């Protein structure tokens, strides 16, 4: 055997040459940081991508390229034809959908991204008001890299708990869940800035309606746990307790921060179905106008009750609205499936039940403290 060893080494040497895989050198690739999908004018699908080209000598520049084709991979080929650098998607952070496309069906787009192993599961998905192309192609005065900018915008707001989170994983998970519908932030251009302007809510992968950005707070309250949120609400005249203060104003705006919440959801009647939703909130009062005597425990108690009532009403309103468009973004269906044995839940079946679902909302708010100045 020993004398053959030399020949074996010779035999395997060529494998070292052929084994080289395709290289991706930073100077020679264009990093797609954002992709937007629209309904095409000529072909089925129009994509607009923000491609960052890293340049060692100069400042790196961002190209926004729009192409039309029938698949997303075909569009990548077409984008390549317009650029001097190879387009790679490993750094993709955001996927945007045009409103018209979102209303049609985004199922296949989510599948296409889940299938591709180079695409990270943690990229954000959002809907653009109107079309994506004009949003990206507009020459903003102070925004150099529109892809990175939108990513930071989403990331920052989601981490601060001002916006619902819609990563590819979450969207894919909810899309294939029997008892849940997907939802995403809505983005639009506001003069020289990009703004989060609401939440798009879906039914079976089709956008059916949207919620105001202010409603994010309620959606998040119903959906899960707050760790440190900020929020403001307005108490109306009926909600203000009579003996809270002498001259009762028409409304009291209140703001909180460092808000932590816990929710408890229970199915109490599986035929209707009927849920008990108890939300416990602990928070810090930061702003209230006109002045209320926070030092007095009785006043605080009354105030807490008033705010709880206000929140319950708002939460019920948001749920009722989503019920009217048959979009269960709160995962009530999941709870139903996990509480009812052999429910054999399907999306159609749940949407039928969901329309007539009843939710008894109860909010228990505790004001832990106010700021450093009473």
């Amino acid at each position, binding site marked *: *055997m020993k004398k053959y060893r030399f020949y074996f080494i010779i035999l*395997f040497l060529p*494998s070292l040459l*052929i*084994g080289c*895989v*395709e290289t991706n050198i930073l100077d020679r690739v264009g990093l797609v940081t954002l992709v937007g999908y629209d309904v095409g004018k000529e072909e089925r699908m129009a994509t607009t991508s923000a491609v960052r080209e890293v340049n060692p000598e100069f400042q790196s520049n961002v190209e926004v390229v729009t192409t039309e084709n029938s698949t997303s991979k075909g569009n990548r080929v077409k984008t390549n034809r317009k650029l001097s650098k190879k387009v790679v998607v*490993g*750094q993709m952070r955001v996927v945007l959908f045009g409103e018209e496309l979102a209303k049609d069906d985004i199922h296949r787009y989510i599948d296409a991204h*889940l299938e591709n*192993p180079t695409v*990270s*599961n*943690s990229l954000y998905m959002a809907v653009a008001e109107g079309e994506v192309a004009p949003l990206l192609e507009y020459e903003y005065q102070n925004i150099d890299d529109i892809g990175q900018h939108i990513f930071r915008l989403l990331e920052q707001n989601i981490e601060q708990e001002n916006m619902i989170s819609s*990563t590819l*994983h*979450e969207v*894919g*998970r*909810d*899309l*294939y*869940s*029997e008892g*849940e519908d997907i939802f995403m932030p809505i983005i639009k251009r506001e003069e020289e800035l990009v703004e989060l302007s609401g939440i798009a809510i879906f039914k079976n992968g089709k956008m059916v309606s949207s919620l105001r950005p202010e409603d994010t707070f309620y959606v998040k309250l119903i959906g899960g746990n707050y760790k440190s949120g900020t929020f403001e609400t307005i108490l109306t005249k009926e909600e203000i307790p009579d003996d809270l203060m002498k001259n009762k104003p028409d409304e009291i705006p209140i703001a909180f921060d460092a808000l932590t919440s816990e929710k408890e959801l229970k199915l109490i009647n599986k035929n209707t179905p009927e849920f008990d939703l108890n939300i416990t909130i602990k928070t810090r009062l930061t702003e209230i106008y006109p002045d209320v005597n926070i030092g007095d425990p009785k006043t605080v108690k009354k105030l807490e009750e008033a705010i709880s009532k206000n929140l319950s009403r708002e939460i019920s309103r948001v749920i009722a609205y989503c019920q009217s468009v048959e979009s269960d973004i709160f*995962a009530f269906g*999941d*709870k139903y*499936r*996990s*509480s*009812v*044995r*052999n429910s054999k839940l399907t999306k159609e079946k749940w949407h039928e039940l969901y329309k007539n679902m009843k939710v008894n909302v109860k909010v228990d708010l505790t004001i832990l403290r106010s700021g450093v100045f009473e």
Partner: protein
Amino acid sequence: MNNTIQLSPKDMINAYLLFFVVHSTQIGVGVHGFQRIVYQDAKHDAWISVLLAGLATHIVAFCMIKTLEVYGSNDLYGIQQDVYGKWIGNFLNSIYILYCFVAFFSVLRNYIEVIQAWIFPGISTWFLSITLLLIIIYAFTGGLRVMVGISFFSVILAIWVIPMLVFPLKFSTMDSLFPILEVNIISLLKGAHSMTFTIIGFEILNIIYPFIKDKKKTSKYTHLALLSTTFIYLSIMLVSIMYYTEGKLLKTVWATLTLFSFISFPFMERFEFVAVCFWMLIILPNLCLYLWAAYRGMIRLVKVSSTKFVWIFSTLAFFGTLMVQTRPQINTMNTYLGKAAFYIVFVYPVLLYLITMLKKKFTSQKEQNNEKI
């Protein structure tokens, strides 16, 4: 019983190393995507199926050790020759060798498929296959103690992967696990049966037994290894069920890797790429020990030097990887291997145990009778 294996102490291994050997041969390529296969039958109670499969390994391992203890210092090949005689015994031995080959091949091909699907779609199969085979040949020529050493390091160096399961918990909900025991017992057993491909590997015990120094401690370390394997599979399964929803889990081919794809560190954007590459260390003991097991059987059948054997074996495996190219082919292979392994690894040892016990009783009676005369 004239075919027992006599070894000098320097060829033997300490009993505690058996923990690493059994544990590392069990965990291999199956762990990448066993979730959806089990989930198909057992739904969200899949974790109970994992527990059942784990329990089954304990029972089977108990039978294996009892059988081996009867013979003192012998392996499965010797036992089969003794129990069934030369012809049937050797026939069964060659089936077992074939099984080792297919298992070896399956691990190799599956791992190459994962690399091609996740990281390098352009890289050719033969290149990866040769690279891996050369490493395995290198390890094999080092002898059993080297391979056991690889098992040891494979387990120790891979421990850090387990805490990574905490990250996906951020997106998990306990609701996915309820209602517990919604599916019937048949589906649970079917799910446990689907675990076969993932949980096999501990049958190496049959072959390595004569090489253990302190044989009394065998069962202790084997069961410990089986327990920790079950624990790892159980935790991966629980996290997967909570992280995915039913529809998404059934569509995810390698759920464990997709689970990792969410993890990113400031210095490392995509964790699963590292995990895929790192997995080579985890499958290495699998490959080496299956190869070694086949070799131990082969020398009972024909006279062959270890170098010659390893080259023939690797060449066959190499051409095999060229034949099996597409995902459906690989899946079919896995299914058949799983089915065969169920009988070879789970059913047969229990049967062999009963036969050995009967034979033992029979021969001891005979001996008593002989003594009387």
